């Protein structure tokens, strides 16, 4: 299904490919108009209402309605309040935030300011991963420009709304992407997720004050919603269940991997064949991870599914960050799963037992299956353990469970082909390295 003829990119409006859009370019394209039209003119409650009406869902992976999150800051909550734009983006296969920030930094900045206005925040902390050092510098540079233009600082646009935005560089751990862990990280504590019964970050986050944590892609949509209205934004989607546009990252065995802004709900087949140039020569589509490493493998049978949160949920999958990692028929999905679980083993924060102790045990079993050292009882045990991962402390371990579940649900035969001394049918039947030592995945490569 081709794009609607009148579709034009929203978030990537100013994308140039070779360099970021400058402040002036952004202004020329109607940038900061939303801010000008909002600060002092619309009430914060109205902004929240519009965002709610637009049905904007969080783009960080969970798909939580942004309007509801903002409304979660109690009117009586103490000050200062914080906005925490999340650019930690360490989900394997995901790079949309980097592309977005690199394409149009001011769009992101404007979105953050509008969010701060809506929740009456005084300070924003732009949390960014260490690999994106250049983007951190870019943001810092553009922040100075925005500040000079009076869009940041005290008394923005002559109103009594003051907002400071600064960059917080992380030192790199996947778990820092989790909102509560990120709050800890910014405070200079160990970035463990925190789950106190009944407590929300919007009530008590950074230093016990209300804090709104949003993905930058989510925030970047806000200026557009405010300028062109919620209805327009909602109509951008390709499906009635979607909202606006989405940055889809496509990587893996496709001809043109990259980040594409498409209407929310574009079909998977369209994304791969229309936009990402189809499979690499010689490869046939086998499966894809629809939203980064912490989602389940989607088999060929779901090739035509509209890619939005509710549609995927309906078939037991998860859109996540909408970062499609595409595998072809020459790849051993078990070996791929081992790679993914190795990532999760390494990045676990070490807080709860299923994640810290369970994942290495699961990895050990997977490696033994890959090496042909396992039997059916091990697969059964693996299945049990994977199910138990859902009772872990935060969403990290369930995320790790997803690819294994997808593997066992859709590619069970492939797993069974490894058992009882047979080893990997795709690659070298070498013995998998023992866990614990540093090792590289072997076998199963295309």
């Amino acid at each position, binding site marked *: 299904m081709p794009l609607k003829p009148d579709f034009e990119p929203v978030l990537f409006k100013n994308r140039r490919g070779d360099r970021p859009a400058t402040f002036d370019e952004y202004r020329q394209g109607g940038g900061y108009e939303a801010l000008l039209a909002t600060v002092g003119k619309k009430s914060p409650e109205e902004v929240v209402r519009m965002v709610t009406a637009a049905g904007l869902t969080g783009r960080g992976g969970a798909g939580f309605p942004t309007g509801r999150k903002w409304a979660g800051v109690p009117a009586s909550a103490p000050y200062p309040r914080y906005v925490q734009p999340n650019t930690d983006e360490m989900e394997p296969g995901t790079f949309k935030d980097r592309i977005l920030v690199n394409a149009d930094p001011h769009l992101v900045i404007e979105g953050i300011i509008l969010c701060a206005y809506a929740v009456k925040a005084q300070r924003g902390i732009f949390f960014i991963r260490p690999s994106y050092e250049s983007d951190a510098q870019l943001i810092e540079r553009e922040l100075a420009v925005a500040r000079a233009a009076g869009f940041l600082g005290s008394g923005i646009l002559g109103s009594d709304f003051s907002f400071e935005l600064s960059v917080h560089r992380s030192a790199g751990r996947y778990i820092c992407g989790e909102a509560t862990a990120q709050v800890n990280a910014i405070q200079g504590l160990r970035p463990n997720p925190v789950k106190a019964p009944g407590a929300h970050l919007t009530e008590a986050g950074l230093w016990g004050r209300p804090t709104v944590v949003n993905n930058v892609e989510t925030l970047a949509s806000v200026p557009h919603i405010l300028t062109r209205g919620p209805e327009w934004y909602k109509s951008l989607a390709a499906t009635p269940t979607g909202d606006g546009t989405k940055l889809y990252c496509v990587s893996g065995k496709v001809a043109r991997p990259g980040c594409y802004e498409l209407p929310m709900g574009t079909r998977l087949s369209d994304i791969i064949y229309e936009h990402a140039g189809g499979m690499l020569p010689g490869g046939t589509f086998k499966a894809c991870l629809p939203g980064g490493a912490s989602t389940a493998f989607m088999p060929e049978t779901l090739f035509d599914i509209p890619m939005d949160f509710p549609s995927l949920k309906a078939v037991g999958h998860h859109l996540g960050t909408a970062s499609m990692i595409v595998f072809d028929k020459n790849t051993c999905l078990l070996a791929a799963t081992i790679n993914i679980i190795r990532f999760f083993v*390494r*990045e676990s924060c070490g807080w709860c037992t299923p994640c810290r102790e369970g994942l290495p045990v699961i990895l050990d079993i997977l490696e033994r299956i890959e090496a042909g050292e396992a039997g059916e009882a091990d697969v059964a045990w693996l299945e049990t353990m994977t199910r138990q991962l859902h009772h872990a402390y935060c969403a990290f371990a369930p995320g790790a469970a997803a690819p294994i579940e997808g593997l066992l649900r859709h590619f069970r035969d492939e797993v069974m082909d490894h058992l009882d001394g047979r080893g990997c049918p795709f690659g070298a039947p070498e013995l998998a390295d023992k866990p*614990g*030592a*540093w090792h590289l995945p072997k076998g199963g490569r295309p």
Partner: protein
Amino acid sequence: MLPEMVKLRRKGEELLEDGLGLLRPFATTLGMLFTRPITVQYPEEKRVLPARSRGRIILTRSPDGDERCVACFLCSAACPVSCISMEAATREDGRRYASWFRINFGRCIFCGLCEEACPTLAIQLTPDYEFSKATIMELVYEKPALLVDHGGKDPDYDFYRHAGVTEKGEKGSHVNEQEPVDVKRLLP
């Protein structure tokens, strides 16, 4: 037949059966009287007892000659007659051992529970049963008397090779162990 008769007859049969049941054993025992006795004439003839028979208790050594006993108190806890007592201590190299170890064979019932409880295979029962003494105090055995210079029934086992504590070799050098964790390491 009348029901009473049936009952009576059944009763009679039961009685007969009971009576036979009473008598049959007599035949059995009588038969025994004419069977060859199995007695072994002990001091002159001696049976070779199986290795697992439960006689005198010993403390064995690991393959490298160290005392296996780590004074974990499990044998004394398992002993139903409380005939084992000891005191644990730390050797200079950090190894746990029994500074003294006493078995009162006057009390011992040779049940073998201590051997079952022993996690290091240190305490073992031997087939030796000929150690009666004229004075009861001589039945109180101290460690030097209990300690032997071999590994007993499982000579190859060395608890410390599996335990993971630093008595034998550094951390990570035991059976099926990873390198010790280095909290400062660069690899993720």
